[in-house]
């Protein structure tokens, strides 16, 4: 069974068709990339998978079960985590606490048990802290754990978003332009990190990315969107030679030569 299945998904924003009849499926433990020119509907697709917007038409299935009507926090609990294109960290909180917030749903504490300081509260908090620290080591931010998240460099903020998303123990991780604003060295490091995440956490990864080198190197499956429609899919070789894709990126007539 596919990990994630999308059927005839569409979204209208006040008459503008941001996404139209998109169907696709994502295999477990794979790396899939959504590519396409700006405004193609890639982030809209992410937002619908994570419950930020309800779709106008169609269906989203996680391991065969519908995600329709679920709020973002429920979807997080069901195992889909994400990072954001325009970084959304808790910027006044420390790096460490950002990751701890990601552990939210593994903690059973409520107001009452927190005030009473019951032993299990302390125990689970300690477990979460250890996990958070391990994740920071994993992405290479363990040294900055007490820094304010907003003071990190751009590349490190992106890494922190990944660590925070991993803390929710997802089965699918959506990365929205993880390499945006990174220099070539940082991008190379990120490429390795993404592969390491897939292998160590046994995750299914979906990414939106404009850096084609990164996309071609990582992705086993590429889905191309343009003007809200899926125009092509396949492996990196298929996509590079697909006339429709070249047209979407370089304009009409580019193929004729």
């Amino acid at each position, binding site marked *: 069974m596919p990990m994630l299945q999308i059927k005839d998904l569409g979204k209208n924003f006040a008459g503008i068709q941001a996404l139209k009849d998109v169907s696709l499926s994502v295999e477990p433990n794979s790396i899939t990339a959504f590519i396409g020119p700006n405004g193609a509907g890639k982030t809209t697709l992410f937002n619908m998978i994570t419950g930020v917007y309800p779709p106008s038409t169609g269906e989203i299935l996680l391991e065969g079960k519908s995600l329709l009507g679920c709020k973002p926090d429920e979807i*997080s609990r069901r195992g889909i985590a*994400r990072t954001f294109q325009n970084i959304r960290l*808790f910027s006044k909180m420390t790096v460490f606490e950002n990751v701890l*917030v990601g552990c939210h749903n593994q903690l059973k504490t409520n107001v009452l048990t927190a*005030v009473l300081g019951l032993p299990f509260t302390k125990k689970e908090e300690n477990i979460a802290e250890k996990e958070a620290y391990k994740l920071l080591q994993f992405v290479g931010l363990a040294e900055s754990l007490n820094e304010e998240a907003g003071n990190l460099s751009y590349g490190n903020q992106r890494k922190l978003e990944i660590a925070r998303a991993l803390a929710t123990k997802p089965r699918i991780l959506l990365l929205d332009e993880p390499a945006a604003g990174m220099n070539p060295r940082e991008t190379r490091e990120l490429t390795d990190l993404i592969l390491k995440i897939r292998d160590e956490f046994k995750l299914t990864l979906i990414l939106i990315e404009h850096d084609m080198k990164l996309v071609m190197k990582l992705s086993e499956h590429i889905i191309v969107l343009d003007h809200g429609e899926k125009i092509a899919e396949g492996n990196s070789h298929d996509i590079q030679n697909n006339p429709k894709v070249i047209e979407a990126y370089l304009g009409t007539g580019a193929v004729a030569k």
Partner: protein
Amino acid sequence: MWAAAGLVLAVLLPFAASQGDSYESFMDVSTMVGIYVCMALGLNIVVGMAGLLDLGFVAFFAIGAYTYAIFATPQANNFLHFMDFPLSGNTFWLFILIGGLVASLFGVLLGIPVLRVKGDYLAIVTLGFGEIIRIVFNNMDKPINITNGALGLSSITPPTLFGIQLLNASQFYYVVLVVALLVLFIIRKLEASKVGRSWRAVRENEIAAQAMGINLFKTKLTAFAVGALFSGMMGVIFASKQTFIDPTSFTMLESITILVMVVLGGMGSVPGVILGAAVVTILNLQVLTEVSNWLTDLSVNGGIAIPDVLSPSKMQRFIFGLLLILFALYKPKGLIQEKNRIVDPKKFTEAGENAHASN
């Protein structure tokens, strides 16, 4: 540090004051400081930690105060006939909790519809709620007289402890001190837990918080309920201390004053808010009154003519406003800024090594 502060508050402060003839009025101010500190700490949860601007916070204080006042005066006889009111001062201790819980319940009831709106809209709706509660208390004297309307409730039974009636401010001071320590304890625990963390996450970025699995509505509602709880508890103490309450004690200015304490102290910062509440209360009740008394004396005896428009009692609010502007300009982040918890990384590395060794 906390132990030292506790010693100063419990022993030194009352002892030092006991020498003067203005002992009771001094202790009265100290008691009010305690009451406002707790309320500001409550509002700090809502505004400072969870980032929800609430302009009607005094409503919960009023609900707590009326909860006790109605049953600790003959007032309740008007609509309840199965027992005789007023209740004895012994019930006060229970009522601190009941008043808090009733206020908390109203916090939840208000929150359910209101927390769907954000930012400026939330501020306006809570402002309206604060006024509605005051006006409702002002008009609930007919058809059944529940609150005695604008006349207010007088001769509220003071608390009794081991058969002794607490009447003086110096006695209330200790009641407030104990409750304040309890409030502080609760807040410290919550702040360091998952609950406090999710409040701040919601404040920092709602969309990201939600993507981390935080239920926005539940988290905000909890902040509202806990904030209201503390405010309601202090309402009960306030009512029993004043022995008289009427709707004019709970105007919008009160809500704004509490908000000023939080902002001036440092939003989200517990020590800051305590300091802010103390500064504002002492300014309002002691320093500015003294200054205006002194100026009045001066104009009467010293021959300085102060024109009527600049009369010291009018100047009092002006000076207060001026001070606020100065604070806003030079301490825009508050007296003591919110600090993040610093963790020692060794805690994890050593623990990890030990675990390996024991394996």
